[in-house]
């Protein structure tokens, strides 16, 4: 197992290098010259040259690429070009609001989808199953924007159950007052596709011989479904959850924008609008690293969930 983990970690290096190269090329090719954005309304070539010098974009490309790599190694991405705020401070302050919303959203959403999927899988082909599947298909077809606008209008504006938007100073206020509606929206959006997906995982297992054997042995349906089927369907579910985890780092930018949550998703959008390369670089690299780490964790979890899995 240790050898496997070390080998996988070593594989991170070429993957990350690929990401670095891609981001660097894309930014320099598509990103535009940030000096012209930062120079203001009335700038002369001398000022533009001064800004380029200060940002380091007047250096040859290979020097800029080397600086980028050293930033990853040291974890110091410098300061935002637009606001002068340290990139590390941006992450430190914006990540917590994002996670306050996204972690409960993921937990509640996954739990609800699993329960619902298990229930409809059990009643496969029945009216309930068909009704839920049709509802899920419709729900899946609706844009997240519609969910946000409708939920915000009804539950915050019309019914006044939640604030329309906002963010407070302490964790509990944020979690219990400002995050509830965004979490409900997020869960509503993810419920339909996750339920459909998990249903197929459960259906694959329900038809297996061991289920028939368990029933033949006289086990209760609750035990068959809740223990045997659930445990065997856990591997693809874990994979799906792990795939979603790195996205927590990037935040849910639409939800954050509409509910004015000072999270990392909004910050990424702002950085793109402002051609703020240090922030874009840091986010891309961290998300890539998180993806690699969570993929590795998923593989290790397979082993924990199913002892038959061999990591080689």
């Amino acid at each position, binding site marked *: 197992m240790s050898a496997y983990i070390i080998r996988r970690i070593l594989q991170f290096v070429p993957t990350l290098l690929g990401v670095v190269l891609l981001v660097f090329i894309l930014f320099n090719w598509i990103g*535009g010259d940030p000096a012209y954005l930062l120079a203001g309304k009335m700038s002369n070539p001398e000022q533009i040259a001064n800004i380029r010098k200060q940002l380091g974009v007047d250096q040859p490309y290979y020097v800029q690429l080397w600086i980028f790599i050293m930033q990853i190694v040291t974890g110091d991405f410098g300061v935002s070009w637009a606001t002068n705020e340290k990139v590390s401070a941006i992450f430190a302050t914006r990540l917590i609001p994002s996670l306050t919303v996204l972690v409960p959203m993921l937990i509640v959403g996954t739990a609800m989808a699993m329960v619902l999927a298990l229930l409809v899988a059990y009643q496969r082909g029945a009216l309930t199953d068909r009704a839920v599947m049709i509802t899920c298909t419709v729900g899946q077809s609706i844009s997240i924007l519609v969910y946000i606008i409708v939920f915000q209008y009804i539950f915050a504006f019309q019914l006044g159950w939640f604030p329309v938007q906002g*963010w407070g100073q302490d964790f509990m206020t944020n979690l219990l007052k400002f995050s509830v509606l965004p979490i409900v929206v997020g869960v509503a959006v993810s419920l339909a596709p996750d339920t459909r997906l998990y249903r197929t995982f459960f259906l694959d297992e329900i038809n297996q011989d061991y289920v028939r054997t368990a029933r033949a042995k006289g086990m209760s349906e609750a035990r068959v479904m809740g223990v045997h089927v659930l445990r065997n369907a856990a591997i693809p579910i874990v994979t799906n959850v792990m795939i979603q985890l790195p996205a927590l780092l990037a935040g849910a930018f639409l939800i954050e924008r509409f509910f004015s949550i000072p999270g990392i998703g909004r*910050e990424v959008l702002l950085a793109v609008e402002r051609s703020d390369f240090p922030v874009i670089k840091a986010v891309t690299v961290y998300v890539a690293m998180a993806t690699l780490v969570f993929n590795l964790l998923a593989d290790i979890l397979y082993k924990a969930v199913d002892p038959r899995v061999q990591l080689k």
Partner: protein
Amino acid sequence: MTKACVFIAILFAAILVGCGERASPDSVSPHAGSPGEKALRLTFSTAETGFDPVKVSDYYSGLVISAIFEPLLTYDYLARPARLVPNIATALPQISDDGKTYTLTIRRGVYFTPDAAFKGLPDSRRELTSADYVYSIKRFLDPKNRSPYAFLFEGKIVGLDRLAANAKKSGHFDYDAAVAGFETPDRYTLRIRLTDTDFNFSHVLAFNLVGAVAREAIVAYGDDTNAHPVGTGAYQLKRYVRSSKIVLEKNAGFRELRWSADAGSDTADQAIAARMTGKKIPQIERVEISVMDEAQSRWLAFQRRETDIEYQLEELAPKFMTMDGKLKPEYTSQGIRMERSVDAEIIYLFFNTQEKIGNAPNPIGGFSKEKIALRRAIAMAYNIDDQINVIRKGQAVRTHYPIPPGIAGHEPAYRNSIAYDPQLANALLDKFGYTRGADGYRTLPNGNLLILKYYSTPTERDRQFDELMKRSLDAIGIRVEIHKDRFAELIKLANQCRLMMKSAAWIADYPDGDNFMQLLYGPNAGQTNSACYKSPEYDKRYEQSRRLPDGPQRNHLYREMARQMEADTAWLLTDSRYRNVLLHPYVAGYKKSAVNVSEWMYMGIDRQGPH
């Protein structure tokens, strides 16, 4: 399954309820301000960048900065066109006869807000002196600050550019070095010597970013001055979550200042003055600003009284406004008011007037009769009414003059000589030999292909402008290619005089006509003169105008310059946008400023009063 059914049932029921009725005016959100609270809650539609006056250029950062820092001069809160009044200076500057020396006396007893940067001083605060303004102005030219507003002082103050040039060479800006252009004979006197005659430099001294900063604070906070503003203004920064929440609190040590403004003959202004005159400034004790990117969120929050004033709802205007620009009755019945004003801006379509773009011939460049005729025909074919009514949904007015309303030098009676007339445009092109081919499109008089290039950004809004341009030019048989590029790249190309045609906007930095008329000054090609227009007649008059104070003589020159530009058709002036500000009935004293004046300090709030 049961849970899902319940959830879906609740959702559908809620939708049905929601569609059936609107939140009642009395159903104030529990998240609204409490009675008696003297806090103003508002939103910014775009995140601020910071509060160091020399490092920012965005509108919203400027609003906060103008609440925290104080320039020497300011503008009367109500007077239109904007009128200079003393602020930290005890009087308007004494200007020497040659317009090169400005002398100002600074108020005594004005203190920076207490801050750790002043440790060791009584109450951790320090008195403002004339040297603080010298330091603050010098910062604009420190290359390390890469100030977007360095142009305000570049080439203007004797000796300052040399100091900046030395800093570029050495990498260190010597703030202690003497500059011949600055004299501080005592703590409260400031003399500024200019390199050339300029009777309008007072506007620079009233610019909201030219407030005094304390050197101790700038040194103490190093690279993070954007988050630690320390000024002398009516408010100080109390809480700051970047790009999310800005809370300002009344500066307890703010100097004694009473509400006073020139209401003139405007009845609305008179009502404001009657309610506010004599009151102590500021009335509002706390300003809470939330950054809300989405118009939908801002609109709902305003209706639920989670915010008290709403500045930016352009996209949603049809929801609360009638076609004739009035607030809908369902909102007026709630006591909501709308302040509608035209922004101090011009939007224009510029034509590159250079004969070549790079090495390629420019079909619309040059000043021969047929080239001017071509530009004129394009301008006459462009449907400005469609731009205003369709694209802007009526939220703009036609612009006739290069200087917008509220700005010194504006001519309300002036009428642009270029009118929408595609028929005449076609006749003009026929006359100058731009003949139509079999495909219906015209060629150049020499028979070569005539293809124009119009530039815009890849946004939904710009796509509408592209379509309008294409439709307008199709009507006169001219082919146009739409070129898309990123905003930064378009600025770069404009600065290199490589854009053939593009729409542009200019928002007033300070309320003086010079800020607009410089946009067509020849030597500004490569900077702000995107048309790269070089007219000796225009330039001569512009140089004369710079030596004159605001008045009939300068206005006469401006009129001649505007006509010259029209005759050469370097621009087509299109429109200026409306700003519709919504206010709840308990908000008093609001008047839209032509420029970034600290408006919150002039406003009042009375949630308990009759409304």
